[in-house]
């Protein structure tokens, strides 16, 4: 399976994602420069973390005008798997591929830490290898991860079961105490209605190897790979 990792000026988790796909998952990976309009026939797209265009103005705001984004939109519309991690999530929001927007963390500070997430659905391409209700431990690192959307959109997200990951306690309790950044409804990651586009603030590529202290992120990539392979069969 071939993953395309989009590189914007200022992306900085591109190489980390490449490493995970290539060296850990042992799948094919290629970089896609933001000026390209062709996705080189990849089977899945990763929008990596970082500070595209310095995150000046608003996180992800400028990146969404990159030529590659039209191709990513088309790819998503055709049902291709797209995962946006951290800055990638912010770009997906700005580009309208997912609903909502990011505000500054309520602490007003950048936060680098380990958090726990509750996996709310296990019937998606990104999460089918998790156990129902599983709690996973995963790193975050962001200054603008405070997810916001208008109330009617939140209702829609809930109704369509689009909230894939929520911040929670190690035991799975979802409460404000375990909300690192002030996100609405403790949202850490959402998918689109069709289920093929995921945006998440935490970094699965940072916890896909034992040596890094955890492997819960591995399952997200493994889920995508298995899903795609089964779909193409």
């Amino acid at each position: 399976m071939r993953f395309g990792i989009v590189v914007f000026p200022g992306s900085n988790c591109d190489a980390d994602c490449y490493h995970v796909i290539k060296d850990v998952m042992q799948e094919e990976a290629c970089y896609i420069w933001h000026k390209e309009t062709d996705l080189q026939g990849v089977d899945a797209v990763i929008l990596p973390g970082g500070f595209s265009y310095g995150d000046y103005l608003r996180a992800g705001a400028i990146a969404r005008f990159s030529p590659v984004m039209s191709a990513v939109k088309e790819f998503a519309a055709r049902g291709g798997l797209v995962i946006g991690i951290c800055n990638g999530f912010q770009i997906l929001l700005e580009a309208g591929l997912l609903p909502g927007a990011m505000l500054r963390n309520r602490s007003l500070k950048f936060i680098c830490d380990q958090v726990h997430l509750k996996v709310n659905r296990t019937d998606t391409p990104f999460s089918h290898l998790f156990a129902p209700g599983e709690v996973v431990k995963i790193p975050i690192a962001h200054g603008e991860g405070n997810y916001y959307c208008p109330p009617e959109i939140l209702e829609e997200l809930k109704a369509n079961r689009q909230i894939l990951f929520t911040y929670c306690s190690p035991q799975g309790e979802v409460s404000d105490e375990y909300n690192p950044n002030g996100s609405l409804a403790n949202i850490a990651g959402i998918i689109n209605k069709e289920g093929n586009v995921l945006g998440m603030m935490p970094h699965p590529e940072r916890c896909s190897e034992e040596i890094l202290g955890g492997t819960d992120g591995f399952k997200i990539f493994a889920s995508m790979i298995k899903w795609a392979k089964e779909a193409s069969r």
Partner: protein
Amino acid sequence: MYKAHVYVVLKPGVLDPKGDAVKKSLHVMGYKGVNEVRIGKFIEVWLEAESREEALRKVEKMSAELLANPVIEDYRVEIVGGE
């Protein structure tokens, strides 16, 4: 050349963590009478255009497309100088 001012503010109802923090600091500093603070952006744009109207149209458009995020922000444009 024209000069435009773009005011970008958070929509009513959208939380403003920075504004709240500033309000709190102001209280600590002794400005007890401050009831609310909202922090938005003040963007100055210098641009070439055929007319004031065209300048306004262009800046309106770039505000809608890039300078403000319609999910959370409102904006207002003013042409303040030029030709």
